[in-house]
């Protein structure tokens, strides 16, 4: 079965500093990886995904993620954090079941950006 792990329960960053939210995966076959963000009391918003091609994927709100096959990682990054980036971030992996997609989510990492 596919799985992802988010080893950090919370990440604290000062505004203007670079941020990294970690994700590692375990899959059989090619990984299809996603990042979502959830603001308080809201649904999940899609940020970016890796399917194939360049290992550096760019997404919404200035976020990017680096796919590293040898380390089985897909860390989310942003060069300069904003206070408004404070939210809950989920890494997910696609699992193909019955011929269509399901997403298996990590436990989530809470990002707190301090002024």
């Amino acid at each position, binding site marked *: 079965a596919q799985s992802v792990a988010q080893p950090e329960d919370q990440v604290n960053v000062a505004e203007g500093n670079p941020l990294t939210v970690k994700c590692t995966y375990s899959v059989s076959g090619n990984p299809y990886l996603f990042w979502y963000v959830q603001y308080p009391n809201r649904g999940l918003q*899609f940020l970016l*995904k890796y399917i194939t091609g360049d290992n550096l994927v760019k997404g919404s709100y200035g976020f990017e993620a680096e796919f590293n096959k040898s380390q089985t990682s897909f860390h989310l990054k942003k060069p300069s954090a904003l206070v408004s980036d404070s939210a809950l971030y989920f890494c997910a992996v696609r699992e193909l079941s019955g011929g269509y997609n399901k997403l298996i989510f990590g*436990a989530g990492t809470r990002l707190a950006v301090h002024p």
Partner: protein
Amino acid sequence: SQTIHQWPATLVQPVGSPLSLECTVEGTSNPNLYWYRQAAGRGLQLLFYSVGIGQISSEVPQNLSASRPQDRQFILSSKKLLLSDSGFYLCAWSVRKESSGNTIYFGEGSWLTVV
């Protein structure tokens, strides 16, 4: 563009009462539809998914059921709610065309508190 609507946004129900959460998708046809539950503001659990009208698959045994009476309508129900049914319920959709990289898009969620 595609949009997903979910209602009610908030619901407080007594134990033993019935439940009906509704979700509709606009701007697309034949979507895959999903119900997820998020407990304690963290992990997401897939409850049901559907590839077509009347076609429902359940991921975990529980007190809930789902129905898809129309192509773009997905309903989550219960005949008798339990305290443990409390949580944040998220409806989601993806394009039906089979592609491993299809993104899953989420609604804004429904808060259910069983008292």
